[in-house]
């Protein structure tokens, strides 16, 4: 019953969120601000994590797939496909659910308990649309860009770590990342990032928007937002993989 109630509330909120904005220029300005706050400010952490993960994946492939039957370029190829198919789309989205999701839930929750949302409603502003729509659009827009940055940084991480550890030469690694490239993997992951981006912004928005109580409840909403978004990301990863690879 509780789950059904929340699903219903979530969809009703989304109906309000996607209503026609009061003034496009104001929403446009908000969108730019949110892209900067939620997206641009995440680039550095995405890049750092991706470089390390690219390096780690390269080392793991080297140590676990070492076989005279396997060509060495498989390390670059494996790193590339792991990054494209799962790490830079799913794992990165899980990380963003923590960073961006908790930020959104706590911001909206604080606005709710300090009556800022009420004050917007009294003015006649569609607070759900004004506060949430730019966040959703910003994260959906920035997620594929972060995905591309992550893949690039991960490949660079492998390029640095592979030759440095002596596992693979630069030439072999480069051959690996350019061999047997399947463009569909990229399309598939970009579709996933759109879906995950929507979840990363909308689920925490729902959790934060309906907070009741005080600081404790805002904290709970923030934690709940991260947990629920993460579960939904993994669930939709499963569904999308099944649907798109069938």
């Amino acid at each position, binding site marked *: 019953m509780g789950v059904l109630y929340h699903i219903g509330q979530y969809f009703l909120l989304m109906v309000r969120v996607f209503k026609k904005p*009061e*003034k496009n220029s*104001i929403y446009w300005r908000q969108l730019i601000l949110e892209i900067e706050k939620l997206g641009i400010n995440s680039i550095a952490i995405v890049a750092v994590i991706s470089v390390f993960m690219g390096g780690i994946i390269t080392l793991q492939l080297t140590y676990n797939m070492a076989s005279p039957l396997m060509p060495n370029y498989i390390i670059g190829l494996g790193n590339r496909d792991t990054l494209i198919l799962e790490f830079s789309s799913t794992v990165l989205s899980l990380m963003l659910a923590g960073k961006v999701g908790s930020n959104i839930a706590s911001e909206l929750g*604080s*606005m709710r308990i*300090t*009556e*800022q949302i*009420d*004050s917007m*409603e*009294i*003015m*006649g*502003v569609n607070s759900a649309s004004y506060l949430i729509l730019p966040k959703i659009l910003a994260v959906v827009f920035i997620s594929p860009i972060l995905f591309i940055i992550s893949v690039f940084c991960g490949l660079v991480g492998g390029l640095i770590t592979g030759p440095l550890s002596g596992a693979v030469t630069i030439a072999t690694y480069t051959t690996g990342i350019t061999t047997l490239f399947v463009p569909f993997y990229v399309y598939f992951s970009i579709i996933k990032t759109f879906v995950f981006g929507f979840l990363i912004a909308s689920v925490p928005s729902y959790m934060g928007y309906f907070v009741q109580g005080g600081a404790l409840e805002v904290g709970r909403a923030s934690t709940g937002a991260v947990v629920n978004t993460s579960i939904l990301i993994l669930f939709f990863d499963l569904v999308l993989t099944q649907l798109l690879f069938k």
Partner: protein
Amino acid sequence: MIEIKNLSKSFEGREVLKEVSSLFEKGKTNLIIGQSGSGKTVLLKSIVGLFDIDAGEILFDGRNTRLMDFKEQKLLRQEIGMVFQNGALFDSLTVEENVRFPMDMFTTMTLKEKKMRIDFCLDRVNIKESNHLYPSEISGGMRKRVAIARAIALNPKYLFCDEPNSGLDPVTSILIDALIKEITSEFDITTIINTHDMNSVMEIGDNILYIYEGQKCWEGTSSQIFNTRNKKLNAFVFASPFSKKFREIKQMEDDE
């Protein structure tokens, strides 16, 4: 003028407002008083439309809110200004941007016109040289005044204040009261203030509605409140030693 008729509201089966009726006149400061938990805030938020009422009617100059469609309700809300207990200023916006917000959303004013209106509103509440400060950088009293400036930015017909004096020192409280009173008569608006500050009752209460356990218990003026025989109201009004002393002095003056 705002009229409420038999207004009832309950939360999860608990009746918070029970058939409350009253008339809040234009150009007057109408006060809703009562103990904490008596239903004052629920009444105020029901009138402004933040809570859906279970029964009764709310009429804004004869316009029944229950018969309004979404568009009409939205237009009505643009005629309402509200000052919340803690100001409810937007943290991410400066003082100037807070006052400009309703203008940005609902008017086609030019930047110059908006600037003039912002200056007028901030000047009216005696806020000077703080336009570029954020709410976290100004005092509680200033925050309330900025909230009043934002509330009057669109020339509202109706002004609602939820405990505008809470958390303020007595001197600042008097200033805020005087400001609300002046604005009410200056712009001829219908003002409803939710308070349990007896100083406000004495100073600015043109019409006072006393709510007790969700019901209308008494209604009258600030001069009548000190001579009433309503026991529940007397227990509330003369709860503090200061007000008891005030009553004794007043009675002595009356006897003389």
